[in-house]
C-alpha cells in the first residue's frame, strides 16, 4: 500500500468525521433553528464529501480499480442540500417567524410564503 495514499485516506476520513461531528454538534449548541440550519447544510455535507473522497482513493489505491460510485452520492448531496435547507427554512419561518421580522423584498411582491405570485394568464381553478 503506498504510504501517501494511506495518509490521504486517513486525513480525509478524519476530516470527514470531524466535520460530520461538528455539524451535528451545531444542532445541539446553536440557539435558534435558523442558526442550527447552518451546521448540517455545510459541515456535514463536507464531511460526507471527505469520506467519499477517502473511499474513492481507497478503492483506487488499495483495491486497484477506479470507483465512480462516490461521485453519484456526492452529486445527490450537493444537489439536494440547498433545496432541503430552503424548505426547512421556509417551514421554520412559516411557523415561528413573524412577517415583520423579515426584511422587505424591495419589490412589489412580498416573500413567497406570504404572497401569491404575480398572476399569470390562464391560471385555472377547479
Amino acid at each position, binding site marked *: 500500500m503506498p504510504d501517501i495514499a494511506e495518509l490521504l485516506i486517513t486525513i480525509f476520513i478524519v476530516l470527514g468525521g470531524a466535520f460530520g461531528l461538528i455539524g451535528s454538534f451545531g444542532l445541539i449548541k446553536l440557539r435558534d433553528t435558523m442558526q442550527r440550519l447552518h451546521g448540517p447544510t455545510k459541515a456535514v455535507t463536507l464531511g460526507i464529501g471527505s469520506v467519499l473522497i477517502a473511499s474513492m482513493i481507497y478503492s483506487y489505491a488499495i483495491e486497484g480499480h477506479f470507483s465512480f460510485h462516490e461521485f453519484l452520492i456526492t*452529486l*445527490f448531496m450537493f*444537489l*439536494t442540500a*440547498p*433545496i432541503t435547507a*430552503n*424548505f426547512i427554512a*421556509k417551514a421554520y419561518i*412559516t411557523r415561528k417567524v413573524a412577517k415583520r421580522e423579515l426584511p422587505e423584498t424591495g419589490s412589489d411582491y412580498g416573500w*413567497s*410564503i*406570504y*404572497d*401569491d*405570485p*404575480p398572476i*399569470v394568464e*390562464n*391560471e*385555472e*381553478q*377547479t
Partner: protein
Amino acid sequence: MTVVDNTLIIIALLPFIGALVPGIMIRAGRNASAFFTAVPTALALTMLLLHAPAVLSGEVITAEIEWLPQLGLTAAFFLDGLGLMFAAMILGVGLLITLYARFYLSGDDPMGQFYTYLLLFQGAMLGIVLSDNILLLLIFWELTSLSSFLLIGYWKHLPEGRQGARMALAVTGAGGLAMIGGMLILGNIVGSYNLSDILASGEAIRASEWYLPALILILLGAFTKSAQFPFHFWLPHAMAAPTPVSAYLHSATMVKAGVFLMARMWPALAGTDAWFYIVTGVGLITMILGALIALFKDDLKALLAYSTVSHLGLLTMLLGFGTPIAAVAAVFHILNHLTFKAALFMTAGIIDHEAHTRDIKRLGGLRKLMPVTFIIGTFAALSMAGIPLFNGFLSKEMMLEEAAHTDWAGNPYAVPILATIGALLSVAYSFRFIVHVFFGPVRDNYPSKPHDPPFGMWAAPALLVLAVVLIGLMPHLAEPVVRAAAGAVTGGVLPEFHLKIWHGVTPALYMSGVAVLGGAILLTLHAPLDRLWLRTPRPEAKVIFDRLMAAAVGLSRRITEITHDGSMSRYLAIFVAATTVMGYVAWSGSGLPLPSRELLPIPPLVFVGWICILLATVSVALMHRQRFRALVVIGVIGLTISVGFVYLSAPDLALTQISVETVTIMLLLLALHFLPKTTPIESSVPRRIRDGVIALAAGGGVAALSYTFLLRDMPSISEYHLANSYKGGGGTNVVNVILVDFRGYDTYGEIIVLGIAGLIIFALMEALLNGPAARKLRNADYSQDRSRDRHPLMMVIATRVMMPVAIMVGVYIFLRGHNQPGGGFVAGLVISIALLMQYMASGFAWTLRRQQIEYHSMIGSGVVIAGLTGAGAWLGGKPFLTSGFDYFHIPPIEEFELATAMLFDLGVFLAVLGAVMLMLYSLSRIARYAGETVNIEPMDYDPSKQVVMDEKEK
C-alpha cells in the same frame, strides 16, 4: 313375525308429498285445498288399514332405507300395534279435521298455507309413531315442534297466536333437545340407534350408569311435549290457534306424542324406582293441577286445554305405574280421550263460530238453540266425566283400579286418594261444561244469535261421539286394538284382561262413585269457589314465562352489547393478553436445548443505533398525540432499521425497507392532511397502565423468544438455496433468486396483494367522492395558515435533474437485482419516488396531464405479465413459474444473461409502480376535491417567462 313391506315408507312420506300440493295452489280456494289435503291422508289411512289385520294378529311390518350409516341413522320404519293405533288416530282425526277446517276457517284465511302446515304436522306425527330408529324419531319429533309452531302462529296478526307459538316452540323445543341428549346416550349404551334393538336391551339400559341421565333427558322431552307439570303452561296458550288446530294438536296428536314416547320406551326404561316416582309423581300432580285449573276457566277452549293437561297427567301416571295392566288402561284411555276430547274441541269451535264467544259466563241455554251441538257436546263431556255407558268411564275405572293397588313409598292411600280427587275434579269441570253452556235460560245478549252449524261442520264431532258411545256400550270392539297396542307397549306379554262395562263391585267403583257425587257437589258450589279462586294469589305461568323470557332476552342483549360494544381497543387488548398468556402456557410446558451459538459483539456504533431505535420507539409511544412529530420519529426508526439490515448482511432488506418506509410516510402525510393533527387524551390513567402492562408483557415475550432462538443453531433448508441459486436459478443474489424463482409463487401473491390494494384504494376514493364525505371535503377549509408558495421554483429546477437520475437509478437497480442487491420491487419503489419528486415539485395535476401511462393498466399488466411468465413454463411441460435463463455473447459486447425471472421481475416492477402511483393519485384526487386549485405552469412563477411577456407588452 316381522314382515318387510316398503309401502310403509310411502305411508310415512305421503303427508309430506301431499304438503307440496296445497302449498303450490295457495290461492285455489277452500274446497280444492281441503280436497287435496284429504286425498293423501285418506290414501295413507287406507294403506295403513290394509296392514291392520296383520298387525293386529301380532305381526310387525318394517321397512328401511339407508341414510347416514356412519351415524347409525337409517330411515327405518316399523308398524306394530302401538304404532298402528296412533297412526290410525293421526290419520283418521286428520281427515276429520280437514273436513272441519274447511267449514271453520273463513275464506279470507290462506287455506293453502293452513293445509300445508297441517300435512307437514301430520307427516311429522306419523313419522314419530312409525320410526324404528330413535334418531329418525328425533327428527320427526323436532318437526312436530316446528310445524306446530307454524300452526299455532297461523293467525299471525294476533299477538296471542305469535306468543303462544313461540312459547310452545321454546318449551317443546327445549324438551326435544334434552331428548336428543337422552336418545344419544341410549344409543351409546346399546350400541345402536335402532329402536327395536333398544327395546330389546331394557335390562342393559336399566343397569347402565347412564340410565338415570338418559331417563331424565328423555322424560324431559316427553313431559314438555305432553304438557306435564311444570311444563304444562304452554298448552293453554297454544289455544290461540284456530280450533281445528287445537282439536288436532292438543287433543289427538301432538300432546300425545309425549305419552306415545313413554309408552314406546316403556320396555327399555320402565320398571325402575326412578321411573315410577318421576313419571307417576309428575302425572299425578299434573292430573290434579290441570283439573283444578280447568274447573275455574271460563274460556271453553282453556277449560278443555286444562282438562287435556289433566288427562295427559292421568295417562302419564298410568304409564308410571309400570304394570302391564296399567299400560292397557293407558292405551285404552288414549283412544277414549281422543274421541271425546276431539269432539269437545270441535263443539267448542262450533259454539265460538256461531255465538262468537267462548266465554262460559256469556253462554248458557244453548240446549234449545243448538240441539245437535248440545247432544254431541254433552255426550262427549259425560264421557270425559267418566259416566257409565260412555267410553271414558271404562278407562277411568281401570285407572282407579290400578291406583287403588299402588303404594307410594310404602303408603297405600296416597295414590288412590289423589286419583280420586283428580277424578272428582274432572267430573266437576265436565259437568260445568254441560250445565253452564247448554242449560239454564236462553240469553238475549249473545254476541251473535247461535244456531246449529251446517252438517259439514258437525259431521266430524258427531262421528267421534258415535265412537264414544259405541265403545262405551261395546268395549270389546276396541279390544283387539288395545290388546295389540298394549302388547307393543309392554313388549309382548300381557296378563289376561277383557274390556267390559261391569267389573263387579271393586274399590274403583267406590272411588268412581265418590268422584261423581263430589264433582256434582263441587259444581253447585262453583260460584263461591270461583270467587275464592279469583282472590287466591297464584303464580301465573305465562307471566312467569314471559318474565323469564324477557329476562333472558334482556340479559343476552346486555351481555352481547356489553361484550360486543364496538370497543376495538378492548378487543385488541383481550387478543394480545390472551395471546401472551397462551404463548406463555405453551412455552412453560417444555424446555430448551442448550445454547449453541456464540454471542456476537456489540460495537459502539451498534450501541448508538440501539439507543437511537429504543429512544425513538419509546418516544413514538409517549408522544404519539402529536401526530406529525410521531411521523418524523418513525422516520428515525425506519432509517436505523435499514442501516441495521445493511450491517447484518441484508442489503436487499435495507433497500426495500428504506424505500417502503419513505412511500409509507408519504401516504401517512397525505392522509394526515385531512385528519386531526393531534390525538386528544381520552383514556384514563388506569387504562393506560393496563395497556402498558399488556404491551410490556407481550413485548417481553417476543424479546425472550427471539433471544432464545438467537442463541441456538438449527439446520435450515436454505443450504440448498445457496447451493443452487447460481446453478439452477441463474443469479448470484440468493435472496432475489429465492424471491423470483424458488419462492416466486410467494412473490406472485405479494404483487397481487399490492394490485388489490391499488384497486381498493381507487374504489374507496370513488365511493368517498360520491358519498356524503364529498360534501364535507368541499366545505372543509384546508387552506388556513398555509404558505403561499406551492410549487417553488428551486424545487422544480432541482427535480428536473434529479428525477431522470433517480429513474436511471431505478433502472439500474432493476437490471442488476438478480445478481446484486436490488430487483423489481425496489426498482418500482425508486421510480415511484422519482415520480413523487416530480409531483411534489409541480403538483399532481400538472404532472399527470403530461403523463402517458395509466396506473390501472400498469398494475394490471404487471400482474398479468408475472402470471403469464409463470404460465409460460407450461409450454415446456414444466410447472408454473419454472424459470429459464441463458448467457449470451454478442461481440464486442461482453457476455450477459437473460432470464425469464427478469420478465417475472418486470411484472413485479410494474405492479409495484402502478399500485404506489394509483394510491398517490387517489389521495391527491381527494385533496383536489377539497377545493384546491390546479396549476397549469410547472412552477408558481417563472421570472424568465415574465420578461418575455413584459417585452411583448412594450
